[in-house]
């Protein structure tokens, strides 16, 4: 990752190791179950997290004082922390050199809806004094820094469906710059409710039949998902000095805006193109170095078309293999990019690219090498993850096998 550009060229930052993984998703809780889920069968309908008990991760009072999106964030972060600490028993980091960036799309929507109900039914005097600290979009990242006692930056980046990717990028940049030695980056979302289903449905954003079919000719919209993803990011030398297992590295990231329309991607995909190009350049690579694309691939007609044009423009034809794990996970909004980053890291670990569930019929307008059917072996190298959010926010991460 670069820290800036001077007259003599880009200033390279420290290398950023990924040393811990945490994930809460509809297809599995924890990295092992999640990977099995990505290779498994697709569900139909909303992709709700099942069998999640917050008391497995939080004390009873802590659970009562936090919204579900913070429960997911704490669970994913604690898993990632425990994973990173497993080799040496601790992360061996000073609290002021450790920080958290857990993003979200909405924040504590379930809390908000419940308190609106109470306000309407019982009046102002019954509204919970904990409503604000539970619904605020920064509640998840705040709860993680409090739990770990980390006093470095604790922030979030609210960029709708690009938030998880931007969260990891921001955390990684702080490690690259030397501001932090260890950071947790990720995203969390728990906003599936009849109200949001109605709202996304009225935008014509949702799938007609509850099927997620990224890049398939029959795709009609996305399916809502939820959950959280978290990565422990660490100065590579710091990771080596404590004997940590290094899964992969964050080598590049970028952020751009379409500056075009609040919900539609720019038809020429300019923002997505420039974001991928900048992320690849940030990694000191060229497009031909990329061996896998984990696409935004929401299964909406417009996103998948615009993204395919952007990929074609950046990589040529047919370009590297493309997968969208949203066929399995649905679209977890502000958690999506973080869950997909975990998928890429596991893809590097397993030397397999997970298939795009739901993809069967080629769309003649989409000239991509879509991985579908079964997982495809690859020689782990460099992968790029795309996330694009309402508001025209674009985020890309380059994740590389460590050398």
């Amino acid at each position, binding site marked *: 990752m670069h820290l800036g550009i001077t007259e003599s060229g880009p200033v390279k930052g420290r290398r950023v190791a990924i040393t811990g993984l945490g994930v809460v998703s509809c297809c599995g809780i924890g990295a092992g179950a999640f990977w099995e889920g990505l290779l498994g069968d697709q569900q139909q309908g909303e992709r709700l997290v099942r069998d999640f008990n917050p008391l497995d991760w939080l*004390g*009873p*009072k802590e659970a*009562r004082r936090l919204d579900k999106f913070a429960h997911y964030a704490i669970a994913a972060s604690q898993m990632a922390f425990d994973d990173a600490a497993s080799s040496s028993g601790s992360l061996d980091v000073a609290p002021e050199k450790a920080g958290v960036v857990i993003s979200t799309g909405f924040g504590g929507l379930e809390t908000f809806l419940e308190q609106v109900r109470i306000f309407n039914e*019982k009046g102002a*005097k*019954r509204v*919970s*004094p*904990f409503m604000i600290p539970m619904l605020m979009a920064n509640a998840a990242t705040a709860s993680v820094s409090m739990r770990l006692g980390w006093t470095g930056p604790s922030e979030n980046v609210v960029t709708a469906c690009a938030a998880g990717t931007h969260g990891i990028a921001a955390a990684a940049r702080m490690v690259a710059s030397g501001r932090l030695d260890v950071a947790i980056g990720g995203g969390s979302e728990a906003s599936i409710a009849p109200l949001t289903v109605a709202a996304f449905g009225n935008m014509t954003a949702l799938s007609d039949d509850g099927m997620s079919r990224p890049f398939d000719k029959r795709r009609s919209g996305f399916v809502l998902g939820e959950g959280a993803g978290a990565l422990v990011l660490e100065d590579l030398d710091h990771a080596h000095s404590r004997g940590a297992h290094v899964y992969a590295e964050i080598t590049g990231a970028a952020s751009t805006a379409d500056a075009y329309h609040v919900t539609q991607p720019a038809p020429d995909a300019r923002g997505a193109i420039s974001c991928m190009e900048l992320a690849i350049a940030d990694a000191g690579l060229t497009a031909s170095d990329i061996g896998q694309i984990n696409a935004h691939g929401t299964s909406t007609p417009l996103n998948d078309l615009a993204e395919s044009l952007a990929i074609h423009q950046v990589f040529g034809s047919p370009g590297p293999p493309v997968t969208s794990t949203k066929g399995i996970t649905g679209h977890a909004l502000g958690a999506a990019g973080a869950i997909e980053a975990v998928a890429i890291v596991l893809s590097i670990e397993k030397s397999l690219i997970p298939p795009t569930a739901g993809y069967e019929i080629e769309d003649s307008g989409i000239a991509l090498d879509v991985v579908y059917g079964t997982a495809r072996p690859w020689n782990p190298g460099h992968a790029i993850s795309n996330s694009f959010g309402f508001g025209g926010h674009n985020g890309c991460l380059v994740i590389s096998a460590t050398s």
Partner: protein
Amino acid sequence: MSDDAIFEKLSQCAVDVLQVPPDKVVKEARFSDDLDADSLDLVELVMALEEAFGISVDESELDGIETVGEAYDLVKSKL
């Protein structure tokens, strides 16, 4: 309502709101030290008591209420 029934109901509110074991809710227990309750916890507890007993408690009446027993006396005085 008997004194025991009042205490039982109050205790249930404290257990629900403060997420403490029932055996810790005794009249001598101090909210801050023994039940780990901060000021917002007490706001929520008062709401729960108002709801459970159908009473109204003014903020000024909470001055000096530090123990479960004092809260019990306040509730009882309003029934």
